């Protein structure tokens, strides 16, 4: 691979510019409403954090290359060329101060999908050598080892052995023709092994066939976060190959936000064809089981609890009602946060922010938005469906001395599971 240079970066910007982007740049009237929608601005009000401003270098490339006036200005030497120093300065805006949460895209009065634009701009940032170290490390490990956190298969196998011993349930690997291929995030393998146990229990109890794959167990996609389609394509291809090899009907994306975006929305476009299987988030699968009567629960949580919507599930994924259906199965005192659902505020650490050490300070500032939402509610338990949100929430709560347990939705459901007599051909 040739060296990462300004020239490559600008060429990548040009390659990324499409009709929607040109339309968005043409439509912006600098009304500033995107700033008010962005927690990196509201909690840290520097005008440079305004979402549309994060696109400024790319806007100039668009203007200079793809508009008559811009071309004229450039020919006359009036256009200000984009420099390497400028992109270096923008790294902080494009990565540390954006979690690709999509709130700006949801409020823009002229309809600009700013998140879509920033995702594309990151491609040029990578090509010009201005991506953060932390994300480069995660992406390199993801490509070379198969996990952004360097988790290898034996680690998963070890966790599986624990689960099999503790539950007596078989956790199958490489079972051809299974209905579900279960994908995980490294976060779950390292920090929350109870997730795998919970999903296994629920699927087995529902009489469904399911499997893990020894070829590929990682659903997260650092390529999407850093903004490299090449890396993203490589990572998603591994999932696709594993799924097609095992001839599964559905691949289950784990409790992770961006993994869902990667697998569900970007994946088919990265490989240039539709899948031969369905891709669903675990919460979607659980809700389907509920509807089919295969997921029955008993008892209720006593605590007053609320649900933190992961951005990629609601705003960028349309998974809004399902977690609520599931929570209502097991909770009598479930209350909604202000702005819950499609307009919920980000935890502050999505879109690669958590893997980017340069963003450690700003992500805690951004958490103040969540703190305000939680302070209004005074709940006893916070439920979510994304391991990355969960870590950020736990860290933020701890730093702000708020005593509130954070629980994964799938685990909570598993704790109330009613054992079914007829489990069919489950293994």
């Amino acid at each position, binding site marked *: 691979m040739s060296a990462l240079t300004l020239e490559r970066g600008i060429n990548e910007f040009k390659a990324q510019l499409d009709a929607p982007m040109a339309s968005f740049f043409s439509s912006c009237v600098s009304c500033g409403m995107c700033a008010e929608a962005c927690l990196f601005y509201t909690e840290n009000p520097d005008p440079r954090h305004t979402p549309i401003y994060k696109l400024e270098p790319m806007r100039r490339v668009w203007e200079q290359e793809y508009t008559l006036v811009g071309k004229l200005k450039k020919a006359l030497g009036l256009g200000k060329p984009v420099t390497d120093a400028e992109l270096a300065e923008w790294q902080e805006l494009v990565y540390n101060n954006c979690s690709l949460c999509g709130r700006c895209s949801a409020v823009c009065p002229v309809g600009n999908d700013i998140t879509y634009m920033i995702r594309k701009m990151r491609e040029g940032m990578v090509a010009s050598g201005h991506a953060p170290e*932390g*994300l480069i*490390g*995660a992406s390199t*490990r993801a490509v070379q080892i198969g*996990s*952004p*956190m*360097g*988790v*290898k298969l*034996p*680690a998963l*196998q*070890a*966790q599986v*052995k*624990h689960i099999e*011993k*503790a539950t*007596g349930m078989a956790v199958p690997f490489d079972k051809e023709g299974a209905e579900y291929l279960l994908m995980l*995030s*490294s*976060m779950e393998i*390292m*920090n929350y*092994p109870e997730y795998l146990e919970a999903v296994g229990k629920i699927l087995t109890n529902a009489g469904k066939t399911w499997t893990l794959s020894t070829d590929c167990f990682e659903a*997260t996609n*650092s390529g999407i*976060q850093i903004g490299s389609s090449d890396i993203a394509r490589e990572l998603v291809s591994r999932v696709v190959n594993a799924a097609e090899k095992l001839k599964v009907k559905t691949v289950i994306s784990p409790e992770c936000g961006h993994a869902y975006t990667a697998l569900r929305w970007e994946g088919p476009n990265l490989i240039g064809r539709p899948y031969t299987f369905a891709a669903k988030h675990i919460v979607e699968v659980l809700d389907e089981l509920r509807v089919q009567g295969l997921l029955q629960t008993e008892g209720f949580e*006593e*605590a007053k609890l609320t649900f933190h919507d992961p951005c990629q599930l609601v705003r960028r994924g349309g998974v809004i009602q399902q977690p609520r259906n599931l929570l209502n199965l097991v909770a009598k005192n479930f209350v909604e946060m202000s702005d819950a659902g499609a307009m919920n505020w980000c935890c502050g*650490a999505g879109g*690669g922010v*958590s*893997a*980017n050490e340069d963003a450690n300070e700003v992500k805690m500032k951004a958490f103040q938005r969540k703190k305000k939402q939680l302070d209004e509610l005074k709940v006893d338990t916070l439920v979510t469906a994304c*391991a*990355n949100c969960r*870590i950020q929430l*736990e*860290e933020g709560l*701890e730093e702000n001395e708020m*005593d509130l*347990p954070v629980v994964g939705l799938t685990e909570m459901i598993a*704790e109330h599971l009613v054992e079914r007599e007829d489990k069919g051909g489950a293994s």
Partner: protein
Amino acid sequence: MIMSDTDFRKELEQLSLVQQRRVGAVFVRNVLALTADPAVAKVVDVAANAEEAGEDELALAFKNAKAAALESHTRCGADSDWQAQAGYFVARAASALVAPAKQAKAPAWEAAANARMARTCGMIESADATMHEESEAQYRFLEQFLNDI
């Protein structure tokens, strides 16, 4: 003699909360060497003396244990260090023991499971018999405890 997790869990369920905390402390002490955080040992001491521990003392211990777990977890996208990760599971085991009564569903079992996980971490890349050794040890600890009470 306890031979399986089914028996193990059944026995644990019979115990009172205080007893669960005490026997759980024994489980966690067996893997305490895997954490570098001295605060965790103090948490385990509180659990071991659960009979005398006051509400305030338990609450403080729980807070400290949670802080220790948070400090030692691996962040999304960070490189994994399984040796350090063992400390995370030890802290989680300890925090299960001192969790408030309404949150504590099966403190001793949770402590046992996390302690095993901690033991496995050191050998994670070459999964072997460590898990069994740890659970066998836990069975014997529980038998001893049941004899003593």
